[in-house]
């Protein structure tokens, strides 16, 4: 079942263009969103969160357009990024206490459970956390309000292999619990383990949207990893 869908999304900047971006997220699956730096991943994600206004096209969640249903939809989605941290000088408890007032389905028991699971100290400030813990802190808020869709923009960027591995395990567990995940990254090896589907973007255009196994079968040569396929495709496009 399609839980989120982008249809012909276009956005033009002076030096960059998103051209008819269309893809969908299947319920309970991890969709890897790959593309090199500057390919348009973050712009697409920002459009999905209504932080960027699209010139044309439609973005739907749960069968409803984002435009006109933003407040209701944002109750059911969560966002995390590895590149930005919120309120670095406030404690995690202060951030949680404020955030929970915005969500109808906030579950304090779930919040405590994930706090324990992620080994987060609520008295710590984001500035005192490692990059991996910052991502977990964002995930904690998203999961405590029962987000059904997680939009993750480069959550593993800047993490060491062990922290990345921990997050991959977590994403797999969340998927098993029915959470739908869009996982944007240029570190394609992260997707080898956990992704079900792949959406590949290059120069603002979607070049492929399919199951990971099909992506490897259709675009890969003998025994090529996702990373090798990605590199070869990018080199081919450049030449």
């Amino acid at each position, binding site marked *: 079942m399609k839980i989120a869908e982008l249809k012909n999304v276009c956005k033009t900047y002076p030096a960059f263009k998103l051209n008819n971006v269309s893809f969908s997220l299947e319920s309970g699956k991890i969709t890897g969103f790959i593309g090199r730096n500057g390919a348009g991943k973050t712009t697409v994600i920002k459009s999905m969160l*209504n932080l960027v206004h699209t010139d044309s096209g439609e973005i739907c969640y749960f069968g409803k357009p984002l435009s006109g249903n933003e407040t209701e939809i*944002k109750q059911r989605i969560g966002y995390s990024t590895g590149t930005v941290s*919120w*309120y670095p000088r*406030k404690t995690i408890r*202060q951030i949680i206490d*404020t955030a929970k007032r915005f969500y109808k389905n906030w579950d304090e028991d779930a919040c405590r459970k994930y706090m324990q699971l992620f080994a987060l100290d609520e008295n710590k400030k984001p500035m005192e956390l490692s990059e991996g813990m910052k991502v977990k802190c964002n995930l904690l808020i998203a999961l405590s309000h029962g987000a059904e869709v997680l939009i993750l923009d480069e959550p593993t960027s800047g993490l060491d292999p062990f922290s990345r591995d921990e997050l991959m395990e977590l994403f797999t567990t969340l998927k098993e619990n029915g959470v739908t995940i869009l996982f944007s990254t240029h570190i394609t090896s992260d997707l080898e383990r956990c992704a079900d589907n792949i959406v590949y973007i290059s120069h603002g255009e979607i070049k492929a949207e399919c199951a990971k196994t099909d992506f490897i079968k259709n675009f890969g040569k003998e025994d090529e990893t996702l990373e090798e396929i990605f590199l070869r495709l990018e080199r081919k496009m450049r030449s």
Partner: protein
Amino acid sequence: MNAMLRKEMCLSASVLSYIFLAAAVMTLIPGYPVLCGAFFITLGIFHSFQSAREANDIVYSALLPVAKSDVVKGKFMFSVMIELAGFLLMTVFTLIRMTVLSGSEVYHKNALMNANPFFLGMTLVIFGLFNMVFIGGFFKTAYKFSPFVTYIIVAFLTIGVAEAFHHIPGCADVNAFGFDHIGLQAALLCGGAVMFTILTFLSYKKSCRTFEKIDL
């Protein structure tokens, strides 16, 4: 309490916004341009906008399940709350000057503005200008602080005119001591309150429109 106002107070605000409320005490300084106290209170609010930008507050707020106009409303609610708290403190100090200290020699030798209802009306005008020029300008981009420079110029021109206004022939009554010319004074205070309301409301509406259009 409104969730957005609580977020502004607990997460976005700089402690300087609260500390700078102490500038209201300037109302008691003899021979001092007392309207500067209003400017310092707005400077405190400006610090909250600065610390909020460092904390990626605008994007965080826009990601919450609220309308974009609620993000704007939160900033206005916080600013107006601080301004009204400052106004209340200045009113207390003005009343002290108008009653207990009305016979004090140092206040009678004042070449600048007296602390009276006209002064209180002008503090509201300064607050209204902050809301219009700075906050309204800020929401055109949600990250540039250049409108604060414009606000400084506008605020000090207004302060200069208001502080010297009573020296214009025929305008001496605006600088009344104690409860002299209380009818005129009350009218000037009401005029300031109307200006504050209009400037703040127009700026809020404009900010909602511009913030809705920008990409974050």
